[in-house]
């Protein structure tokens, strides 16, 4: 999987490049609009991580050009700018996802994975993990064989955990996917909901707890 990273901050680009390489992707960095155009003209890429503020132009303009010329691979926008308006603008121009700086590398990886998976058209209707079974079509959840009643928010949160089992989910990602909020919610709403999930899915004695807190970042379904 070849991924193009368009980012002018050399150090940030290096971090992203290294992290993607560690996950066995094949990343390449372009530091400007011109370099990005060249790279994309030279060889095909499976996905693009695109920074908006570039020294020789606007990343959104670049995205517009690409979409107009028929480039259909997933694009993840990386931006230090205003989260609310830029996000809407970017998604309108054909970006597939949007991540605001400062971001967690785990979050970037999760999003890239999810973009590539969506591209592959991986459509599962039943999610299972350590005794939890979620039927997405029937919207039924069982734990150790017994049915569990969930509110719609709890269901959405659990689905997010199950789809990213074993990975760290940041608060930003959770807020975005479950609450459709592109801002920080200023409350401990996420913690309260995770606590409710913990009550409904108690860990089997002696085993590792299901929902782990990752301090300073978010949560993880172990």
């Amino acid at each position, binding site marked *: 999987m070849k991924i193009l990273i368009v980012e002018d*901050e050399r*150090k*940030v680009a290096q*971090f992203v490049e290294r992290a993607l390489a560690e996950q066995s992707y094949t990343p390449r960095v372009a530091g400007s609009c011109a370099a990005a155009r060249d790279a994309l003209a030279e060889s095909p890429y499976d996905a693009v991580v695109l920074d908006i*503020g570039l020294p020789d132009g606007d990343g959104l303009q670049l995205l517009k050009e690409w979409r107009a010329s028929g480039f259909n691979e997933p694009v993840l926008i990386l931006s*230090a*700018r*205003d*989260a*609310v*308006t830029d996000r*809407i603008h970017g998604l309108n121009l054909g970006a597939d996802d949007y991540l*605001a*700086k*400062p*971001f*967690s*590398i*785990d979050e970037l990886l999760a999003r890239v994975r999810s973009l590539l998976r969506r591209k592959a058209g991986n459509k599962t209707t039943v999610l299972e993990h350590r005794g939890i079974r979620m039927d997405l079509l029937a919207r039924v959840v069982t734990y150790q064989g017994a049915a569990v009643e969930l*509110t*719609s*928010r709890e269901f959405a949160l659990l689905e997010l955990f199950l789809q990213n089992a074993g990975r760290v989910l940041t*608060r930003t990602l959770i807020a975005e996917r479950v*609450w*459709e*909020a*592109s*801002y*920080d*919610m*200023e*409350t*401990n*709403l996420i913690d*309260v*909901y995770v*606590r*409710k999930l913990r009550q409904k899915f108690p860990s089997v004695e002696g085993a590792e707890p299901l929902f782990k807190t990752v*301090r*300073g*970042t978010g949560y993880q379904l172990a």
Partner: protein
Amino acid sequence: MIGPYTRRLMVRFSALVTVTTVIVLLAGGLLLEREMLRSMEGMHEVEADEVFEVLRDHPGLKGDDLAGRIDTKLGSDAALYFIQIHDDRGAILYRSENLGDAVMPDLSRMEENEHVLAELPGVGGVRLSEFREGEWHVQIASRLKPVHRILTNYAKVSALLVLGTAVASLGLGYAFSRFTLRPVRAIELTARRISADNLRERIPVLAVRDELADLAMLLNQMFDRLEGSFEQVKRFTADASHELKTPLALIRLNAERLRTRLAGDPEAVAGLEDLLEEITRMNRIIESLLFIAKAESGALLLDLKEHDVRALLAPFVEDARVLAEDRGVRFELARDDAGSLRLEPALLRQLLLNLVANALNVSPAGGLVTLESVQTEHGWWFIVTDEGPGLPAAQLEKIFERFVRFEPATGENRARGHGLGLAICRSIAELHDGEIRAENRTDGRSGLRVVVALRR
């Protein structure tokens, strides 16, 4: 609908036209009177010449003989005039019969041939002319009555004309003011269209340089400056975001990298986690400050759309109940009016969540926090009421300012606020063309009531 200025202009125009008409008609009346008197005097002169002819042809003729001669000479005209002849010494040589007892005034004091207005007893107002030749003084007078009659008729017609002009000029004045104000309306329409989302547009300036072109240019210059300062705020917030968040991103990435390396050292890991939490907190402050800066400068544009308020509140209320339950406080949606409102759902949810979270934080255990969603005549009110301690009156105004915090009454186990939550609430309310205010409860209980009043 006629604007007040259009109306003023119309009335002024009408007044101007009417006054001008009155002046013209008055002048016309004076000229007419003068002309009629002049022609009367001209007739007197012709008659006098004929009388002098008789006197010259028959010097020394007196009494009835003279009268007979004169009557013959003047013929039927004689009846129209009052005639009296006397000599230098004042002896009367002739008096026309129609004078009766009336005596012509003595005009010998006057230099030469003169005309005066006089009052003859038994006859009334006359125009009197005296002509002299040798020793003879010939006085001829005619009644002023016909002149007065014509002038009276003239005045009547004039009054009608003035009235008609006044009415007609109101209509003309309306057309005139509409026509005159057309360029001003064009300026107004353009100026209305120019807002934060199309600051590029300018008022068209006509090639002719006149006062209105100057005004349009002045306004355009103002729009230039406005556009400039909006652009500046936008550029500043973009630059600030970039310059602040890029280093923050690097710190975060480095810290995360270190965490995996330090996995065996719990103390170091705890330190790093603190660091990560502080980075998140700092990022939140930057985001909030930039949001407020943009909102206050008018550089932030919302895409407001009509939304069903009940549908918007339903999931929010679910979250609020969950939060309240966690705090051991009750939450109730006390009023839930149906209807729709122009709003940005994510921002309105954030506003309400901030307010409810604040209310929950100050509530005592078991306390009640209520939300009322009330449709009003001109908009919508969202009212959040708590049972906390309330606030001193002096602080009520201040809590919506940046970095102002009031100490929560209970508990320590909540996320640390950064003192921008309520400032953001105010920005969001203002972005929705509304306002926010806090007041202490007036129903005898302690607690705060925060009202978000949005206009439709």
